[in-house]
């Protein structure tokens, strides 16, 4: 099967999945008992108000017709208007997206570095106390979800040893020269390292909370995969060449052990992105997730719809990228 066919097939299933998400979001909001319009209005609104707002959102039409109108709008980039902010949903969502992306990628980076280092160390020192310690730490990290890690980190580094910020994305009094919302990236490009440090000191704890469970999963999967690879004949043969154990692990075993780990890490990364919703809330970090919870509390349905769909796009996008990376990295697929 060629690489191109793989890509096309994956794009097709991605499209189907996204369509499914759109349908479910749409119907959950409209079909589930409860009148969303009544919820949007303050108590004491008249029937007339409700009727007017219903017409405004096209809710008086039949449900398939509503879906048609809404779907056509979505395809043209029109996600409707936020009820609370009275701004286009798409613009609001895209303005918050960079903050969430930076946080997720930072967390992924930490998880890959820590998890990878743990897996390599555990493999290098296998069957020693160190490997046992890594396994126990990994088990602990996995049994507790990101929300609780966040709270524990707040206690440890916000109260007991207040060395990091525990709320916000950046110190509000700072003068920000940024033109995009990718603050961290832009501060690096502009070489404003003072701002980079301030951003990181805000982002570190939320990123760590998200990274701890993922790091444990990476360590576990990669170590298992390395362990299996280390028994293979080509690794044994490489040992007879006089290479050091570290080099054998790094050059011979790791590239082959990475491949099976990659797919699983992709799925886990989407879970991490899902976790940003509550972690951003916990750390008052101004990203998409925080906005989503505000939207829910304010019953801002158009905004909620937009955010959920954007998250679904990110999720399926990550899965797609992982599948394509797998195909690109696997020599069998590349040259088959």
């Amino acid at each position, binding site marked *: 099967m060629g690489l191109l066919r793989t890509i096309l097939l994956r794009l097709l299933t991605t499209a189907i999945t996204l369509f499914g998400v759109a349908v479910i979001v749409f119907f959950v909001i409209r079909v589930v008992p409860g009148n969303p319009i009544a919820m949007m209005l303050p108590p004491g609104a008249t029937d007339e108000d409700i009727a007017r707002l219903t017409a405004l959102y096209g809710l008086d039409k039949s449900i398939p017709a509503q879906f048609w109108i809404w779907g056509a709008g979505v395809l043209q980039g029109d996600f409707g208007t936020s009820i609370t902010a009275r701004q286009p949903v798409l613009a609001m969502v895209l303005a918050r997206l960079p903050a969430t992306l930076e946080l997720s990628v930072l967390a992924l980076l930490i998880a890959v570095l820590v998890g990878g280092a743990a897996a390599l160390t555990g493999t290098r020192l296998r069957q020693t106390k160190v490997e046992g310690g890594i396994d126990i730490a990994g088990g602990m990290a996995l049994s507790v979800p990101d929300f609780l890690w966040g709270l524990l980190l707040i206690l440890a580094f916000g109260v007991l040893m207040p060395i990091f910020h525990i709320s916000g994305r950046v110190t509000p009094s700072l003068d920000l020269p940024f033109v995009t919302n990718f603050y961290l990236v832009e501060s690096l490009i502009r070489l404003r390292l003072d701002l980079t440090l301030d951003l990181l000191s805000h982002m570190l704890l939320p990123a760590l909370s998200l990274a701890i469970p993922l790091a444990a999963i990476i360590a576990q999967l990669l170590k298992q995969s390395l362990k299996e690879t280390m028994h293979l004949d080509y690794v044994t043969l490489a040992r*007879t060449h006089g290479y050091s154990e570290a080099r054998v692990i790094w050059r011979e075993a790791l590239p082959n052990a990475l491949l099976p780990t990659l797919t699983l890490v992709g799925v886990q990364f989407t879970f991490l992105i899902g976790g940003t919703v509550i972690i951003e809330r916990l750390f008052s970090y101004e990203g998409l997730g925080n906005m989503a919870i505000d939207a829910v509390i304010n019953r801002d349905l158009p905004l909620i719809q937009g955010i959920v769909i954007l998250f679904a796009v990110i999720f399926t996008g990550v899965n797609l990228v992982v599948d394509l990376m797998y195909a690109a990295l696997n020599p069998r697929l590349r040259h088959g």
Partner: protein
Amino acid sequence: MTYLSVRDLTVRLKDGPALLRSVSLDVAAGEVRGLVGESGAGKSMIGKAILGILPRAVEVVSGQIVLDGVDLLTLPPAERRVRVGATCALIPQDPLTALNPSRRIGPQMTDRLVDILGWSRANAAARVQDLLAEVQIVDPARVLRQYPHELSGGMRQRILIASAFAAEPRLIVADEPTTALDVTVQKQILKLIAGMQARHGTALLFVTHDLGVVSKVCQSLSVLYAGKVVEDAAVRAFFAGPKHPYSAALLAATPKYTDPDAGLQPVPADVIAAVRAEVGHG
């Protein structure tokens, strides 16, 4: 002149039974010695002990492995590794699993020359290309750019043989190098190894369960049973008349050397019992 001398080597599973019991054998420079025994006799374990690739669950209890006058077991691990890497090589059993699937053939072959022996990249590349030509691979330059899965099993075994000779080692351990191959390919590969050995003058420890192979390529052989050497002889003398009853039985069980019409002769039970008693096994 003895190049490799294994003396009273005893190896066991950690907290388990012994796998090799006081094994001794010598390989002279340029000599081809067969190491024969049934599966489980411990013949591969000897090769692994020499090359320092024993599984982690296995430990050396006592003995010496003297390579070129130096006892490898007394060296610090790093020094031992480099010494073995520079002077010894392994031709593995299964060519399908012995090449790294994610790396091109070229770097897999040249890395050790550059990293361990300090050759220049260009020299290493030229050397490897010559060797591939020597093992009769057509278009070596192309093969060096390919991945293992693009090559046949026979091709891969040739590459592994060429790779074993790449650093001009003084000793090569061939661990059943033809067992995993097609019968038709087996003969060619055997001839190839014998030819390469003769041209390069490398000592060869040929691990096999096939006495027919031994008669074709070896000058001397050690017969192993249950982790113990039961006979050590020159090939000619051995096939003329083995001294040990187990060897004799093993020879009788090899079809080529008996009347083909008589069929296969299993090793007689009384011989097994006698040998077991002798080596103190079960």
